[in-house]
């Protein structure tokens, strides 16, 4: 037999064996055997590992479990740090001129509303405390000017105090 013939026979045999072994590993018997072998290996590992850990612990040495515990804590700390870092970066990336956006507009609307409410309350109190006599036009004008000045001043002061108490740039 020539070398080429022998080689061809060898390759055919190899292909046949390959197909046969692939059928074998796909069989129920092999799958069951694999499962049992894995279960036995796991049990063996568990027994050995537990015994070794006991020996190490009784020698008052840091064992694998202790190192693993520390490693896990470091991992969790790193997870938290990453989340905090992302929050910080998100805040840094936020555009600074928020007052020009919709939020800024709502702030201005709130300020105008606050002024109106304050003006109404102050004017009502003044009217109750000092009801006008309506005896002279000059007094009425003076009273109106006085009330207006007081209302504007009070409204401005109220908003200024409110803005300071929030502590933010708004």
């Amino acid at each position, binding site marked *: 037999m020539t070398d080429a013939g022998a080689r061809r026979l060898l390759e055919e045999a190899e292909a046949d064996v390959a197909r046969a072994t692939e059928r074998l590993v796909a069989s129920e018997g092999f799958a069951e055997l694999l*499962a049992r072998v894995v279960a036995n290996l796991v049990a063996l590992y*568990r027994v050995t590992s537990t015994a070794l850990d006991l020996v190490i612990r009784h020698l008052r040495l840091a064992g694998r479990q202790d190192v693993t515990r520390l490693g896990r804590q470091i991992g969790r700390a790193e997870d938290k740090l990453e989340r905090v870092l992302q929050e910080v970066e998100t805040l840094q990336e936020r555009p600074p001129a928020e007052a020009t956006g919709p939020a800024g507009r709502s702030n201005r609307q709130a300020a105008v509303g606050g002024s109106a409410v304050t003006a109404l309350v102050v004017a009502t109190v003044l009217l109750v405390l000092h009801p006008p006599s309506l005896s002279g036009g000059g007094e009425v004008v003076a009273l109106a000017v006085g009330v207006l000045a007081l209302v504007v001043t009070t409204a401005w002061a109220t908003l200024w105090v409110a803005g300071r108490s929030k502590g933010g740039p708004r």
Partner: protein
Amino acid sequence: MRPAEATAAVEFGHILLTQDEAEIGATPKDIVWTHRSTTLYRYRSERRQYPVPVLLVFALINRPEIFDLRPGSSFVEFLLEQGFDVFLLDWGRPGDEDADVGLDDYVCDWLPWAIRETLRAAGQQELTLTGWCIGGVLCAMHATLERARHVRNLVLLTTPIDTDGSLYAHWVRRQSFDVDALTEALPVIPGAGIDWANKMMKPVTNFWTTYRKLWDDVVAGKPRRVAYQSMAKWVADNPPFPARAFREWMTWMYKRNDLVAGRIRLRDRRVDLGRIDHSLLVVTAGADHIAPRAGTVPLLELVSSRDITHVDRPGGHIGLMAGSKARAEIWPQVGDWLKKRSYAKEDV
């Protein structure tokens, strides 16, 4: 043994013994962001032409260097040459301390955080999310939760969606395979164990044929040393799988097939694939035994995207995108698809 065979045996042994010296993931890149074991990289490029960045997300098993396997055979290199701004999300190597990390952490926290950092670094509002295998599932889950916010394009490479009829499901969808006991005992599932299970799906191909072909090449005097070593090094590098994430993955995807049924809930939000309305590219491989085409195709009917492209090519789960033919066959298709969808919106 003839002298030529003795020489070949020495060469063969040398290739196997020095495979760890192969350089993979060599394209220059910068770290953009790190969190726990996760790292986001941005590849250096002076040819960025398309504003929408591409974020690559690989599976939780094996390492993401498969996107950038070796010079001349690197999907990342290809994308950079085409003018894309490329980022890579590396899940790292979880340790025992990550036992309580679940799929929700990946989908609801780490992936959106990486997207956020990608957009910040690129100075953009939207990106292309490209997931491979489990990475594809994570991306799809994210796209259902963060609907159309920052993801413009979704690219899913050999991604398992409907696991009915798959070999994995056959192995684990039985009471005797107690995934709860497994994940209670082990804080992380060893990557080597998962790799062994993957290889057992095609035992002769993985444990024999690969080496036999290498031997034949060496005897013939044309060993593909660099190609073999880089792939072998990548295949052998298996990070562990966090226990809770593994339990959720196996239970939801394989024991109960919850994803396709819309029964998965992450932080009180339902993962409904119907909410995917992004431009969608789905790539399947005809000979994929890990994420068979039949298990991916149902996605095309479930999503609400109007712009859907399905590319199906012969090839395996990894070989399709990282094999010797990928550069000539599949990458240009992916690149062309991306180019049409990676302009700034005002330019469209």
